């Protein structure tokens, strides 16, 4: 019997949310990201909360699991913006991530520093942000990432082609049925038009059992226990790697501690490793261990979001497309100033979350909590963003640059 691996990959990210920033602030105050502590948009407060509820307790368990199970491994992607926030507001939480990587069995995945959609708007800026992220990861975790994931798992042939040329071992994508067709996500693939790179595809059914359905008492499989889950995976004869990709905040934030999610996590390695053919791998180990079984052609962009699995959550209405185009139209002028504070403010605005908050897709269904937003409405998100954009333009004009 051949080897089977769980490839657990968790994504850690926090954006710099824009405060209630009005037309009266534009041209006067440049502190877009500094909401008062008690506001919903306070990045400091959210960093404190998420460190307390999710990062610290989860990392404590993960560290224990790494110590107890020599075969347990996982991969993390952690954006530059969240690293900065933890450095500033929750150093203990950052330290707990470093303790994980110090075991040598936690791999950090490459991405854009600012969790942006730059790949689709400016290839040059995209490459700068990927480089910034690699530098930051090297500085904080002492690793050089070997596997790439694009923001929100935005993936198509072009992204794969770029990552192949850039020398990455593997790239991550959503194992979405229209892309896979009859094929299973539980194998390693090769992206079309590439030479060396491997493609790892998220098994969204199994991943969502943990990330979304775990605490749902109406779900027919509730309660999901570690031995039941390990049994499902073990019973699957046609598989080499189970790619369980999810937001890190699944643990303690999306699924609260009271759902039993931490107990599930604590028991999963032991249950899975009962069989000698079962193991855990990091993303690059999986890319090395298994030969690609087929070529995957992905002309259209696929993401890990919503039932559509496309970019419509970020670029689905004219507020979103208008504001992102306006922002990138300033790129050359902003960079030419060499004003590091201005450049960083502009980059923080490239974070995809700002455009996600402007999404109106589900607003009409009455389920305004279907997405995570610190704003009451998508319109409010847009107004704050555009006023910050106008202020960036104002700062350019102060330097004699006419926009």
């Amino acid at each position, binding site marked *: 019997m051949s080897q089977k691996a769980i490839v657990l990959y968790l994504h850690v990210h926090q954006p710099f949310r824009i405060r209630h920033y009005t*037309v009266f602030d534009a041209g006067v105050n440049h502190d877009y990201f500094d909401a008062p502590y008690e506001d919903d948009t306070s990045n400091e407060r959210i960093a404190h909360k998420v460190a307390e509820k999710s990062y610290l307790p989860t990392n404590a368990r993960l560290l224990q699991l790494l110590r107890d199970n020599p075969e347990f491994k996982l991969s993390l992607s952690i954006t530059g913006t969240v690293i900065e926030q933890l450095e500033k507001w929750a150093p203990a939480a950052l330290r707990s991530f470093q303790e994980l990587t110090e075991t040598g069995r936690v791999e950090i995945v490459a991405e854009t520093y600012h969790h942006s959609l730059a790949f689709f708007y400016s290839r040059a800026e995209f490459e700068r942000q990927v480089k910034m992220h690699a530098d930051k990861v090297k500085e904080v975790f002492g690793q050089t990432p070997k596997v790439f994931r694009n923001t929100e798992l935005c993936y198509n042939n072009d992204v794969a082609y770029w990552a192949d040329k850039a020398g990455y071992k593997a790239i991550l994508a959503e194992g979405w049925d229209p892309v896979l067709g009859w094929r299973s996500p539980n194998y390693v693939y090769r992206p079309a038009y590439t030479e060396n790179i491997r493609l790892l595809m998220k098994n969204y059914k199994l991943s969502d059992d943990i990330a979304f359905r775990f605490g749902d008492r109406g779900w027919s499989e509730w309660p999901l226990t570690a031995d039941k889950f390990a049994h499902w995976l073990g019973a699957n004869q046609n598989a080499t790697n189970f790619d369980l990709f999810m937001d890190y905040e699944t643990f303690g934030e999306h699924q609260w501690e009271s759902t039993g999610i931490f107990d599930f996590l604590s028991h999963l390695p032991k249950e899975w490793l009962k069989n000698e053919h079962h193991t855990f791998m990091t993303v690059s180990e999986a890319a090395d261990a298994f030969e690609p079984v087929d070529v995957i052609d992905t002309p259209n962009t696929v993401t890990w979001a919503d039932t559509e699995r496309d970019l419509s959550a970020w670029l689905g*209405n004219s507020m979103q497309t208008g504001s992102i185009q306006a922002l990138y139209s300033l790129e050359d002028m902003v960079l030419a100033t060499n004003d590091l504070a201005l450049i960083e403010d502009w980059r923080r605005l490239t974070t995809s979350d700002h455009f996600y908050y402007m999404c109106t897709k589900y607003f009409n269904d009455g389920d305004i909590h279907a997405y995570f937003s610190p704003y009451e409405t998508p319109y409010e998100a847009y107004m704050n963003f555009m006023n910050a954009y106008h202020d960036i333009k104002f700062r350019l004009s102060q330097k004699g640059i006419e926009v």
Partner: protein
Amino acid sequence: MLGWELPPHNSGGLGVACLQLCRALAKQNIDIEFVLPYEAEHGIDFMSVTAATPQGVASVIRSGIAYDSYKYIKEDGSEEWLNIYDQQELYEKSVERLIDGREFDIVHAHDWLTARAGMRVKEKRGCPLIIHVHSVESDRSGGNGGNPLVLEIEEMAVHMAERVMAVSQHTKNCIVRDYGVPADKIEVVHNSIEASDIVPLDTDNTYRYLSAMRAQGYRVVLNVGRLTIQKGLPNLLLAAKDVIFRAPKTLFLIVGSGEQYYELIEQAADLGIGANIFFTGFLRGKQWRDAFAVSDLFVMPSISEPFGLTPLEAVAYGTPSVVSKQSGVSEVFKNCLKVDFWDIKEMANQITSVVQNDDLRDTLTLNAQAEYQNFSWEDASKKVVHVYNQHVVGAA
């Protein structure tokens, strides 16, 4: 059912809401006799409309708006003008005479104007009384106490009624606050709108000048409503000054009349923004519809708005809205911007954002139009029928 007005002889939202509610109730097989204090042709076929004419009076003629005087032409040919307080007293007596020999299960009275008549009917016949509150006196007086005579009638009525219906949670809260009525006695029945009742626009717009200015990059901000303290227009003008400072190509179109008319014109001049503000007075029909169509944004800055239908009418003509959070419509309408009526800075911020960003205006409009398709009076009428059934003996 006791009412004060019906379209086209209405002055505002009350008549429209009554008509729409009754039409939806008729579809639920409710047999309605709608009793008005005046005589007129309404062209209504789904219920009977009766005028309660006082003894010795040949006809009652409405003039102007609801809160103006009515002219009473007596049988001997003489005429008399009565103020609104005397009118509702007279209406009470007329209704009392009218019900003799008539059969009905329940009396449903709209607003304080018909409340005395409603209470009289209940007293005389012992039938259940529903008081339907479209606004409370503290709304109408902009939170400044109000007329003690009206307060007294309103208070007595909501206590005497078997059930109270409020057009919004906002109004329900006001009734509980002002009159100490137990909350579970009050049913919230939100007003709504029927897309099929909207009169379509024709191809040319009345406002030639404003259309030309828009073509030159100007943006038009609209308010439609009575120019009265409840509607919060002075705050809109203060916000307008900030908006015009940031976005000089912004014009404000103020449609309506009322006791603040001259005061507002003077305020605009004092603020130095007179050239950007257009007052039209009271409008109907095409001029009224075209005002929405020529505008980029509708603002309803009301201090206290029991419901406030105009933002939904604006959607019908393709115009998005900023609405006061102190309004009933803000409870049910999602795709609009919302602001506290006192927060002039935020009001200016929202208006400026819309006039400076066509993307925001267009996305708001598109989503509001999608949302608008789901509005209907059917849900409201079902709630009302449910309440009727709880109070009528022998009902299902």
